């Protein structure tokens, strides 16, 4: 085990990311040495501060999928903090920076909390509002900000060596850029980073798997604001003069453009995008009038043809040469089902009612699920089965009725909270995190049960082995055949080692062989102690796994019992096939 561990550690250290960081450090040292003209050195400072601001957008937009058109405002907050601090208020640069970062944290958190109710274009609008109000205040509150005249004579940060030359400051700026890039890159593969990316891919599924999407979105905004402010601070001390013009809506749009053209999902892409916009005006000096037109055009072209940006293109090519690192074997098998006596009630539903406007979807349904059961929920199309699953997992709030899970009422709880109590589910129309790998999907599911990183890994390894997808671990979900995608969704749900598993039409779209495999897996899970509530249309699948069945029609329970009893019940036959006498009388 120890030599395995060493091998793993070495493999991790040699990961392309770490090599890139080392290479980056070399580049940082070399650049100001090679290009010594004052003009270019200043561009390095500008490019670095823009790059840092753009890295902030990688976190909120690239990772979490939330649009922010306020990044220039946060950039400005950092810049003004350092500017005011070192000129008017006469404090240490680092203290001024800290104050700026705190202000950015607060502002970012406030903006992030608007995502509670708003998303999409509403969110875009809120961020725009914030950005514009910021610009109006900095331009017009002359007493504090100096208004359009700006602030001059900004000082440089005190450092080990005095940063009194352009070249030295360029090193400083580039080093900070590298540091931030490294942090943003590192964030990607952490628990938080994966949670963010899960939200971007499929917020509903992330929530159902235990990710507190509300909190993560606020954190994402806060981080991006703090990073943006840091970029602004670097800029202010670089150029020693700032005015509100550098932090307006156009710049917010420019940062967005940089991150999109470069590749919003990666730190390196952000730097690429920022670098391009910094140096493009330089290289296209003759075409100065139209380089922004080109940039605007580039955004459209990139969005249409290369949604993952330029860096995405590079990654695509790089993927061909990537060596696949195999996963270690699972230290232990999957443990599902929790502790408790077989047959005890783990889910009790009383008079559950759900109304959508005028439509009564669920009509006073009572349901009890006992530990160790595989309980089927069946009924014709439109009978309310999926609605009930959504009510149980917290996606819908019941109009009336009670739901008790493991002796606790769960009506009104957020889906992530219910998930943490031990419930997991799959979705009728697959909700995988398509741009994440199989392994990453399962990891997100494994986090539901908390605990140490090694515990999470162990669970995820057990889950992926259980469904037999270990050799496909690093494939992106969107490239998998449908049958495998369904297995990933199952593995993701059980990786959190739940006590109750809700399955919504797990057999839909599968062929005979795949259905047989599914039956085998479900039986094994049940043997290991997992309680399952399964909605299905394929009756032979239901007969093979379920011990109890509840039948719904028009939102009402019409029969309950063993699968055989229920399928022989004339009321059930009529619900599915229609009433023969009535039909013949038509």
């Amino acid at each position: 085990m120890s030599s395995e561990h060493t091998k793993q550690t070495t493999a991790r250290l040699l990961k392309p990311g770490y090599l890139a960081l080392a290479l980056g450090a070399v580049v940082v040292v070399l650049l100001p040495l090679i290009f010594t003209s004052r003009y270019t050195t200043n561009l390095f400072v500008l490019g670095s501060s823009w790059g840092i601001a753009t890295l902030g957008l990688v976190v909120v937009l690239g990772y979490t999928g939330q649009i922010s058109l306020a990044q220039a405002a946060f950039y400005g907050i950092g810049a003004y903090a350092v500017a005011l601090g070192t000129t008017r208020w006469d404090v240490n640069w680092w203290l001024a920076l800290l104050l700026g970062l705190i202000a950015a944290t607060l502002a970012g958190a406030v903006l992030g909390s608007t995502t509670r109710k708003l998303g999409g274009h509403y969110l875009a609008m809120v961020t725009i509002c914030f950005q514009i109000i910021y610009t109006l205040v900095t331009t017009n509150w002359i007493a504090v900000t100096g208004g359009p005249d700006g602030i001059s004579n900004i000082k440089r940060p005190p450092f080990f060596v005095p940063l009194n030359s352009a070249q030295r400051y360029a090193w400083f700026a580039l080093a900070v850029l590298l540091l931030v890039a490294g942090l943003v890159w590192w964030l990607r593969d952490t628990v938080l980073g994966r949670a963010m990316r899960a939200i971007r891919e499929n917020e509903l599924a992330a929530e159902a798997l235990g990710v507190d999407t509300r909190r993560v979105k606020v954190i994402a905004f806060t981080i991006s604001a703090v990073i943006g402010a840091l970029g602004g601070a670097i800029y202010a001390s670089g150029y020693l003069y700032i005015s509100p013009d550098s932090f307006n809506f156009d710049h917010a749009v420019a940062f967005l453009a940089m991150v999109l053209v470069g590749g919003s999902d990666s730190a390196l892409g952000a730097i690429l995008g920022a670098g391009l916009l910094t140096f493009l005006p330089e290289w296209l000096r003759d075409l100065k009038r139209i380089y922004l037109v080109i940039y605007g055009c580039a955004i459209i072209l990139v969005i249409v043809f290369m949604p993952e940006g330029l860096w995405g293109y590079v990654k695509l090519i790089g993927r061909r040469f990537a060596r696949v690192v195999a996963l270690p074997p699972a230290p232990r098998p999957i443990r599902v089902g929790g502790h408790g006596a077989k047959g005890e009630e783990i889910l009790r539903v009383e008079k559950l009612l759900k109304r959508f406007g005028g439509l009564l979807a669920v009509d006073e349904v009572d349901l009890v699920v006992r530990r160790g059961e595989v309980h089927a929920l069946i009924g014709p199309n439109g009978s309310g089965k999926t609605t009930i699953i959504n009510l149980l997992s917290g996606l819908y709030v019941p109009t009336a009725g009670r739901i008790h899970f493991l002796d606790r009422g769960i009506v009104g709880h957020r889906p992530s909270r219910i998930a943490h109590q031990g419930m997991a589910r799959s979705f009728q129309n697959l909700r995988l995190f398509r741009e994440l790998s199989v392994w990453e999907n399962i990891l997100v599911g494994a986090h539901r049960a908390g605990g140490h990183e090694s515990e999470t890994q162990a669970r995820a390894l057990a889950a992926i082995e259980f469904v037999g997808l270990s050799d496909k671990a690093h494939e992106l979900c969107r490239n998998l055949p449908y049958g495998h995608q369904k297995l990933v969704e199952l593995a993701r749900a059980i990786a959190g080692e739940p006590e109750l598993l809700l399955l919504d039409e797990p057999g839909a779209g599968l062929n005979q062989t795949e259905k047989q495999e599914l039956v085998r897996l479900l039986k094994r899970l049940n043997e290991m102690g997992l309680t399952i509530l399964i909605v299905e249309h394929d009756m032979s699948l239901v007969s093979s796994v379920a011990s109890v069945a509840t039948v719904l029609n028009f939102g009402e329970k019409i029969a309950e019992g063993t699968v055989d009893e229920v399928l022989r019940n004339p009321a059930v036959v009529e619900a599915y096939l229609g009433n023969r006498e009535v039909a013949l009388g038509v």
Partner: protein
Amino acid sequence: MFEVRDVHVAYGAVTALRGISLEVREGEIVCLLGANGAGKSTTLRTVSGLLHPLKGEVLLDGKPIHHLSAVAIAKRGISHVPEGRHVFPGLTVRENLVLGTSNRSNVRREEMEADMARMFKLFPDLERLKSALGWTLSGGQQQMLAIARGLMARPKVLLMDEPSLGLAPILVQEVFRVIKEINATGGTTILLVEQNASMALAISQRGYVMETGRIVLQGSAQELLQNPQVRDAYLGGGKGA
């Protein structure tokens, strides 16, 4: 009148139809039965042009139409009343009906009025509601409107997808009565997708039963009504794949 030949259809990675062949002759009511997920709606959507087959053809009066757009196919006289009613919520009953004639250009005022009068006779409730907005109608009323709108196209072929879905039993009877009448008086050819097999077979001449993208059973309505395998397709499916 129209024919589906060995059609294969996929939604991205999922194969929904694995070689479907069926035909509907002029003046017939043919029903397409099967459990949820069998591919019945997919079949209708392929005929009406919302989906295009990977393999196989759809022929109308002997001419291939499977490569045409939905708009073009509508103009050829195929009227699809999709699952879920889909009445235009912000338009009135009258306006919905008028739009039903969009498959023909230059419809004369008198024709339109005459057709509408015919619809109101068939669906008396709709006349009462003619100025009501679509979203205010009940499920049953919306279904009636959707059928009437489909008929305003004076279609050669009427494709109906689960007209009884979500309707109370008494309304279900009404809907099927109307469908039978449409066929009897107007001679409209109908392909009917239904989950409610008994009702559907009671008014059809022939039927097909589907399971996971394939046709597993076919015959006259009489035969199918007696055949226990129909029941299996719903309540014990998965054996014939």
